[in-house]
């Protein structure tokens, strides 16, 4: 393990430049800590080399705990001749507590395990939300996982698998939260933990959960299946607080910053009574007015979530933003939670049966079209899934395309006259 690393002279002129200045320096911290974990001297020396040469010296390899298919990101150094203890210098991804809340006991436990088995470098947190522990050799990585498991932790995902979830602090400390992000995160993680540990998907799949449209988890572009809190029906308004806000900030401020900034112009101001009126049917739950006047305005009582689909970074079709998949769903009871995971299972089934290798859900939808995706998943189309209907007139209406080849004609009524389909959302 890195703990037995040879002492070496720290020689990091470039990195030393990162020790000055008001922002905390991870260089200073690690330099100091290298006294305890000498491998860090090698690490920083190699990093300094990178700064000099603008070149990277890490290569990947694969190592897994038995029974798992991910969780360890293995790195070997090209410079292990110079820095022998970097020959194997892996990262262990640990599933973080939803909302990144910790007791000090738990956090110390993490620090101890990291230090005991490797270089003791901890990142709080990785961009996918995991606790990242850096600097283990092969044996150390496995032992680290073992220790984590023994203390109740679990390891995160990598490869073509579900990834560790990420959620905002939600109901634990936020008045905007429209559902229990933490509980839902734990429910999804636990229900699908096998999919997280054993890569069996066509490619990676991420969830992120935000309690409201402010999307403090950055779910919409960073996850394949964002779950975002919302409500239906009337927003909660304390008119006395509205009046107080107007008194404090002035009428102009309220007009310019609340009324004029509502994306659907659905708030009207009664200057005489210093009250506001919201046309709730046209509110799109963007959160802006609540953000400006959090004391006066709150989400409505009938809370739930909007589920989106398809977000991810740029491979291969350019950045993809998630779009609405389920406009509204209640998420309060345990049954609701099971309904949610059942629903996800169906979406996954269609994607994994039909997706190509290394094809995220968003790319899959791009390839086959959202209409076909919905059909494949058995989801009713809803106009709230779109910004606007198609502009392209190239369409294959299956109902109207009798298979001429076989000589028979279907008799489905044309759509303009069809009984309206049920458009209830689940």
């Amino acid at each position, binding site marked *: 393990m890195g703990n037995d690393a040879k002492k070496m002279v720290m020689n990091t002129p470039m990195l030393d430049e990162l020790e000055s200045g008001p922002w905390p320096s991870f260089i200073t911290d690690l330099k100091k800590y290298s006294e305890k974990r000498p491998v860090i001297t090698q690490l920083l020396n190699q990093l300094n080399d990178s700064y000099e040469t603008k070149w990277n010296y890490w290569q990947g390899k694969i190592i897994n705990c038995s029974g798992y298919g991910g969780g360890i990101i293995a790195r070997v150094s090209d410079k292990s001749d110079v820095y022998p203890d970097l020959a194997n210098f892996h990262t262990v991804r640990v599933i973080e507590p939803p909302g990144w809340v910790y007791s000090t006991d738990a956090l110390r436990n993490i620090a101890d395990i990291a230090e005991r088995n490797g270089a003791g470098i901890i990142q709080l947190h990785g961009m996918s939300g995991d606790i990242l522990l850096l600097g283990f050799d092969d044996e150390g990585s496995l032992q680290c996982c073992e220790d984590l498991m023994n203390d109740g932790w679990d390891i995160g995902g990598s490869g073509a698998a579900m990834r560790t979830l990420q959620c905002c602090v939600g109901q634990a400390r936020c008045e905007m939260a429209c559902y229990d992000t933490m509980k839902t995160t734990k429910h999804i993680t636990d229900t699908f933990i096998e999919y997280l540990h054993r890569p069996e998907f066509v490619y990676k799949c991420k969830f992120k959960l935000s309690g409201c449209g402010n999307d403090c988890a950055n779910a919409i572009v960073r996850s394949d299946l964002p779950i975002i809190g919302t409500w239906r029906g009337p927003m909660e308004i304390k008119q006395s607080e509205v009046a107080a806000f107007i008194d404090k900030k002035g009428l102009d401020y309220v007009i310019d910053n609340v009324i004029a900034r509502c994306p659907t*112009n659905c708030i009207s101001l009664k200057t005489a009574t210093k009250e506001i009126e919201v046309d709730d049917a046209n509110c799109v*739950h963007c959160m802006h007015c609540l953000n400006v006047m959090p004391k006066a305005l709150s989400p409505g009582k009938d809370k739930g979530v909007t589920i989106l689909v398809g977000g991810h970074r740029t491979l291969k079709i350019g950045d993809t933003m998630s779009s609405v998949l389920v406009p509204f769903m209640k998420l309060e009871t345990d049954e609701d939670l099971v309904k949610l995971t059942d629903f996800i299972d169906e979406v996954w089934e269609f994607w994994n049966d039909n997706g190509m290798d290394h094809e995220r859900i968003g790319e899959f939808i791009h390839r086959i079209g959202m209409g076909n995706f919905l059909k494949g998943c058995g989801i009713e189309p809803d106009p*709230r899934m779109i910004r606007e209907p198609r*502009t392209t007139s190239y369409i*294959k209406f299956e109902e109207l395309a009798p298979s001429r080849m076989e000589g028979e004609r279907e008799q489905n009524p044309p759509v303009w006259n069809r009984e309206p389909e049920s458009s209830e959302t689940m």
Partner: protein
Amino acid sequence: MSETKLAPRDQGAPDYTKFLHPVMVDNYGEWDYHERIKPGVLVHVAKSGDKLFTVRAGSPRTMSADTVRIICEIADQHCEGFLRFTTRCNVEFMCREESEVEPLIATIGEKLGWPLGGTGPSVSNIAHTQGWLHCNLPGSDAAGSTKALMDDLIADFTQEDLPNRVHISSSCCQINCASHGDISIIVQHHHAPRIDHNNMQICELPKVVAICPAAAIRPKLVNGKESVEIVEEKCMYCGACHGQCPSMEIRDSETDTLSIWVGGKMSNARSAPTFMKLAVWGIPNTPPRWPEVSEAVKKILSAYKETGKPWERVGEWIDRIGWAKFFELTGFPFTRYHIDDGPEALSTLNRSAMVRL
């Protein structure tokens, strides 16, 4: 016929300066403002103080030489021998005195009997295409269906009580020569073209292969002759190949349908120009009067009239109320075909958590 004489003379555009009403000549580029006096009647006031009154009449576009002569008679009688037509094929008679307006209107009524209107927030004339009268591609008759539809919308033409102008277009195939409109009607096919391999020699094969947007056409030897084949799964029945090659027949009198598209807007006023979007599909193609088209268009217009705000064009109105509301108000079903799958499809999705609930 002397061919030599015809050989390129390349004369160019007519000298319009000779065709301008004298008040236009005097005030060319010096207009100040205009007012709408009543439906179908405009007045333009020049900086000089001159006025030009315009009376706009709805025209069938297709007319006999005799009808053209009647139009000329009216213009001779009231308009100093000048007149014009509009982008939407309406005819405009102009006179300089307000007192001339009513006599002019009377003469139009007498001699032509064409309705006055199409000004301001009304339904103007329908932009339409050749149809069965002349084109080689039509699946319907845009001229006839325009006549039938305008009969049904006559009050919207002769009155100015919509939120804003409504421009309707109607085309006899998906090529859509009548182009975008607030409300647009086009023909939709539902099969891949049938290929007449015997007739194939007449078209240029590479062109027909190249024109297919779905890359569904492949060259193929049939009975030893060069021809093409169509990959059924790829073809999405656009008819582009049919335009290029008459031996690839896409039309089917029994299964062709009409669809209605909404929200096309070309002006830059307030909001940027927008394409038209699919509203309802599968409307039966029912000459001679296409009552189902009228029914659907009226549903759209009455929802627009009831809930649109002043100056909102159809597309702007729907943007404000949301598409879910549009489908609710019109009763048209929202189907998976409404969801775009063209090249920019992803950008037409609701890529936000902004939802009306």
